[in-house]
């Protein structure tokens, strides 16, 4: 098997490209595809301050590494979820990477700083763990970005993540969700801009990127996620991809090009009625935001320096949705 570019021995075959790549040209492919996504979707401007949501897994460490190699000023944010050994280990990987690249890693620890952990919070709030986790992450990433003066929050969502979510939303015709499944959520209504620079790369490529670059990451799946619907959707799409390479790419990018705009008015309608949360000041459609309700139900507390200081809420149209109950 030869590299498509240089004809040297290949290390990886990427069937949706109908091509094989050596180490050097595989790494170049990853950088080029990320740069193309950033350019095509107008994700990040030069000299902007970037905050990468880092979990210690392959995708978040890979996107951080690629952004640094592309010359972006990117710091990391790690959220300790209190999921036993899994959280301890994932935190070690995040810290080790930050130290290697000599970059700032902001850390928030749910048990120490907010008085609850994901397993306990999920039970208390009667949410599935992935729902409590996602809600906590989104709220705290937004807050950290605004408090830290960052221009944009980067997440490690890749093509497989996006295709699987799209698959689930189409199965149930969740038209409100379809209207805001975009690679970029603009900074509006008091929320920071959020972008997904890995949407042109699959998760197999991201794992390979980390192995090739010598980036250690947590390989084991989160014990809370075992058997969730999202993993089932990925299995189903990979079965299709095995016999029809390129299907996931065509499904997701075809949606963005031909269908996404049809669902956007419904999503934008949900922007009305945002007001500051009475507890933390974050934008919400309820009196108290979903995160603060979760903290209360879980028996936790907001840190002393977090109070009901309203975040400026504009009224422009946005592709993003308001704070609302999660689904999983």
């Amino acid at each position: 098997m030869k590299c498509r570019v240089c004809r040297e021995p290949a290390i990886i075959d990427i069937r949706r490209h109908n091509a094989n790549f050596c180490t050097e040209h595989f790494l170049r492919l990853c950088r080029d595809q990320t740069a193309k996504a950033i350019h095509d979707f107008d994700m990040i401007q030069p000299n902007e301050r970037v905050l990468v949501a880092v979990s210690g897994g392959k995708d978040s460490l890979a996107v951080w590494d690629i952004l640094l190699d592309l010359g972006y000023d990117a710091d990391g944010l790690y959220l300790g979820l209190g999921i036993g050994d899994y959280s301890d280990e994932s935190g070690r990987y995040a810290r080790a990477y930050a130290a290697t690249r000599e970059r700032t890693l902001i850390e928030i620890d749910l048990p120490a700083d907010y008085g609850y952990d994901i397993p306990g919070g999920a039970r208390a709030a009667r949410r599935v763990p992935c729902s409590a986790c996602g809600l906590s992450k989104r709220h705290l990433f937004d807050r950290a970005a605004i408090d830290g003066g960052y221009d944009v929050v980067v997440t490690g969502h890749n093509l497989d993540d996006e295709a699987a979510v799209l698959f689930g939303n189409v199965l149930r015709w969740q038209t409100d969700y379809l209207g805001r499944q975009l690679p970029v959520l603009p900074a509006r209504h008091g929320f920071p801009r959020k972008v997904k620079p890995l949407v042109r790369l699959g998760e197999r490529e991201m794992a390979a990127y980390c192995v090739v670059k010598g980036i250690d990451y947590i390989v084991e799946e989160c014990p809370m996620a075992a058997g969730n619907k999202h993993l089932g959707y990925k299995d189903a799409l990979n079965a299709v991809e095995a016999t029809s390479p390129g299907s996931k790419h065509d499904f997701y990018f075809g949606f963005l090009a031909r269908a996404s705009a049809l669902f956007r008015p419904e999503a934008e309608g949900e922007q009305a009625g945002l007001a500051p949360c009475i507890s933390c000041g974050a934008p919400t459609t309820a009196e108290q935001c979903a995160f603060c309700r979760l903290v209360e139900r879980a028996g936790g507390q907001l840190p002393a320096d977090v109070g009901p200081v309203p975040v400026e809420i504009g009224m422009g149209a946005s592709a993003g949705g308001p704070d609302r109950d999660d689904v999983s």
Partner: protein
Amino acid sequence: MVAMKVLLRNPRREVDVQGPLQVSTLLQRLEVNRESVLVIRGDTIVPGDAWLADSDDVEIRPVISGGDFGSAIGLR
């Protein structure tokens, strides 16, 4: 008889497989979808047509992770 040691994950376990055989054949034999894994020999990724020998230490590493569903659909 010497056999190749193959490490599998989730759950973590090790199986012995008789070589030599190609990566693609190993994955078929273990009924693993190649889209969902990397095959690593030592610390090097190997492509589907690479030959594996009995003396090799091989890891079949899953690449699928649960993800944050809410963020992917643009929940704030």
